[in-house]
């Protein structure tokens, strides 16, 4: 039976960063990833990574505390302020480290790391490397993993967790190449599996970002936190929903409706305009579209034409490439049609500020975790920062926690879990219904956009929840999975669709319960923030009857909740 | 896992089948003409060296090699030399001046020069073939 002291699940930024930290501390570590690390969704991040470096003229009054305040304010005061403080205070160090590892940041004329303005931030503090910051960070961190010789199991999928006495003691894996199931023991497991965007149809996320990973710990009893808070990115390309970075607006792009009007002035102050926080800008765009001021194809325009060819080529070359490749538009001469798209989940696996979940030996970091630094709405540029900072902290903590422990797999628990998964797979292959599971996936995704989108309403959400239950019923009556072993994508999809349904249910129940408007959770029937009753985190725990909700207070240290105005 | 076995010659056909572009085309022809020219070079030295055994030996050898067929083949030789020379210069320009972006343009310019060269060659060589 295979054994590693620490297992990192997920080869994105958070996972890779955690692995480096563990390797540096001298513990044995292996990364397990469904895809090669360089294919991770982190590489799609475009705009930048926040840190109060005060490198440019306009940001010279910036400080860690101001970054902290902006983050908390952006979160609509739902963020745990101690976690946010850690995030913002470690930011400069984390970024200097990346730079020392070779990340090719763009530079100011003095040779320092360049910064650009981003939504919801008081100063230009987003460090960037043209508009491919995520890709370059991912390259850098992966290269460091090569340097530290970290073992990577590429194209191995985690199917389940093995637990013993409420402690995590390993994972069950499927090697996609051979189709074999493998049990792998570990003293600590770090989940860094990223987002769940694919349960929505209009997502900017990669095809691999399904709800599967997050549901694995959920099924064995690890609670999920704040799942109702889904961020909608204001600018995603029409139809394909490919991300158009916030940097477009940071560099001075305009949003225009069909009358050519810069409509953001109606929703936020003249000073902020397009650079409001994402939830507000996204809702403004959707309002314009809903009230008939959008273009006939249901979009508004992101206008970069006034920036000039030089600036676009220098700062936003990737955006230009995407526009030319996918819709045949050159943003130097034509505005880009955009709509809001599902982008990020603020919630996730419940962790404390060291990445430790309520289950011993089980950690989480990155987008799949909810340390709650982002509260109800994340600011642009903070997600890359979160992956790096909390990946690092989770790695450190996990490495500490396994020191001096037995280096032996707990055979009994692993074998049980292995048996369970083998049965699951057999069941999937034996099914003989009529339904096409992919139809269920698509219908779920469409429904989520309609019922749990930017604007939410009690009755819509209730019908949405009914729909989920119906789809769950239908899922029992699907066709059997393809029987082959090698690279069986079909079987994997079955797992993912089943998980999508469960995660959607958690999301729906959490959202229906929260009777207020906060950050990205905007309800038309309760359109005010309610600090009296709802300044608390939603915790959803698995039970066979469906998710059980409980609540947890928000940590408030320095900034008292106030009205959020931009 | 499956991997196709490569034959020594088959390999060139496969590469051409999967990459039908200027680069592969000129690489293949460059190789072929290079080998032909090297073989020709040695043959050439051998024929000329017959002069070492006196003028008669040289003249009798030249009679053997100056037939309508060899004169016709000389046109082919000119094609080889012309292509190899021009393409060699094209690659050298790309390597020395980092002009990789312009390689296609250079190819077509070289093609035009090659065409001119061939017109002159044919006008001189074809009459020679039929003068026997």
């Amino acid at each position, binding site marked *: 039976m295979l054994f590693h002291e620490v297992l990192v699940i997920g080869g994105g930024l958070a996972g890779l960063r955690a692995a480096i930290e563990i390797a540096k501390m001298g513990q044995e570590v292996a990364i397990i990833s469904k895809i090669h690390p360089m294919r991770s969704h982190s590489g799609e991040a475009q705009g930048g990574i926040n840190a109060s470096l005060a490198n440019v003229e306009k940001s010279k009054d910036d400080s860690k505390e101001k970054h902290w305040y902006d983050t908390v304010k952006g979160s609509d005061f739902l963020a745990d302020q101690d976690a946010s403080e850690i995030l913002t205070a470690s930011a400069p160090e984390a970024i200097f480290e990346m730079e020392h590892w070779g990340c090719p940041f763009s530079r100011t004329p003095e040779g320092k790391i360049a910064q650009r303005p981003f939504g919801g931030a008081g100063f230009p503090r987003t460090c960037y490397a043209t508009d491919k910051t995520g890709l370059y960070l991912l390259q850098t961190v992966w290269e460091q993993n090569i340097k530290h010789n970290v073992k990577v199991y590429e194209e191995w999928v985690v199917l389940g967790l093995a637990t013993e006495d409420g402690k995590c003691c390993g994972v069950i894996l499927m090697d996609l190449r051979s189709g074999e199931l493998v049990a792998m023991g570990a003293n600590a497991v770090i989940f860094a599996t990223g987002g769940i965007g694919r349960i929505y149809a209009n997502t900017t996320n990669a095809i691999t970002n399904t709800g599967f990973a997050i549901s694995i710990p959920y099924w064995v009893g690890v609670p999920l936190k704040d799942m109702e808070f889904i961020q909608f990115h204001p600018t995603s390309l029409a139809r394909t929903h490919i991300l158009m970075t916030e940097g477009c607006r940071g560099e001075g792009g305009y949003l225009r409706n069909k009358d050519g009007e810069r409509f953001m002035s109606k929703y936020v102050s003249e000073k902020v305009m397009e650079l409001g926080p994402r939830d507000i800008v996204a809702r403004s765009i959707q309002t314009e579209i809903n009230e008939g001021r959008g273009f006939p194809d249901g979009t508004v325009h992101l206008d970069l034409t006034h920036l000039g060819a030089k600036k676009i080529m220098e700062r936003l070359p990737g955006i230009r490439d995407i526009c030319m490749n996918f819709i045949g538009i050159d943003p130097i001469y034509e505005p880009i049609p955009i709509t809001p798209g599902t982008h990020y989940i603020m919630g996730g696996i419940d962790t404390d500020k060291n990445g430790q979940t309520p289950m011993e030996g089980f950690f989480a970091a990155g987008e799949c975790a909810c340390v709650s630094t982002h509260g109800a709405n994340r600011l642009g540029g903070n997600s890359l920062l979160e992956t790096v900072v909390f990946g690092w902290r989770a790695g450190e903590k996990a490495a500490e926690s396994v020191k001096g422990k037995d280096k032996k797999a707990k055979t009994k628990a692993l074998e049980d879990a292995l048996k369970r998964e083998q049965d699951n797979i057999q069941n999937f292959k034996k099914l003989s219904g009529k339904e096409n599971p992919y139809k269920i996936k698509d219908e779920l995704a469409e429904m989520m956009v309609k019922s749990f989108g930017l604007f939410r309403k009690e009755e819509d959400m209730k019908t949405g929840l009914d729909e989920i239950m119906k789809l769950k019923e239908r899922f029992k009556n699907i066709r059997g999975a393809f029987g082959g072993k090698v690279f069986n994508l079909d079987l994997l999809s079955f797992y993912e669709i089943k998980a999508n349904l469960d995660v959607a249910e958690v999301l729906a129940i959490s959202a229906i319960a929260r009777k207020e408007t906060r950050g990205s959770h905007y309800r038309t029937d309760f359109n005010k923030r309610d600090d009296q009753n709802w300044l608390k985190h939603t915790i959803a725990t698995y039970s066979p009857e469906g998710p059980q909700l409980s609540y947890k207070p928000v940590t408030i240290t320095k900034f008292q909740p106030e009205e959020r105005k931009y | 896992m499956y991997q196709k076995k490569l034959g020594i010659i088959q390999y060139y056909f496969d590469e051409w089948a999967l990459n039908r572009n200027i680069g592969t085309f000129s690489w293949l022809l460059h190789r072929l003409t290079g080998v032909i020219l*090297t073989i020709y070079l040695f043959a050439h*030295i051998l024929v*000329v*060296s017959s002069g*070492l055994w006196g*003028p008669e030996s*040289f003249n009798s050898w*030249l009679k053997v090699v*100056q037939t309508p067929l060899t004169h016709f083949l000389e046109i082919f030789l000119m094609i080889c030399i012309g292509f190899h020379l021009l393409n060699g210069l094209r690659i050298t320009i790309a390597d020395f001046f980092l002009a990789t972006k312009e390689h296609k343009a250079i190819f077509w310019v070289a093609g035009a020069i090659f065409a001119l060269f061939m017109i002159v060659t044919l006008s001189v060589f074809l009459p020679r073939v039929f003068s026997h």
Partner: protein
Amino acid sequence: MNQKQSFSSAYGWFIQRITGILLAFFLIVHINVLHFGEKFFIDFNMVTQRLEGSFLWAIFYIIFIPVVLFHGLNGIWGLVEDYRPSQGAQKTVKVLLWILGIVGTFYGILAITPFL
């Protein structure tokens, strides 16, 4: 970074290009004179007329022959190397090519002496 480095291939590459450029000049002169300039049929006398007592032509061929042989045989070596022969085979081919080159050079220069 433990694999054996070979700067000889670096010079091989460079000299191949330089000899290539030189050959462009040599060949144009050689072919122009022989194939385009001369009458239809060549015999011993015609060649002797051209070369006899010409110091320049002698120098021309003494440089031309080694350059063209190096270029040709180095090209063949590049082709052979692509097939990744074993160390032993590589050595054999290398020695063979060097012998061919040196013998060819001497024999080639020798071959033009009757005309001088």
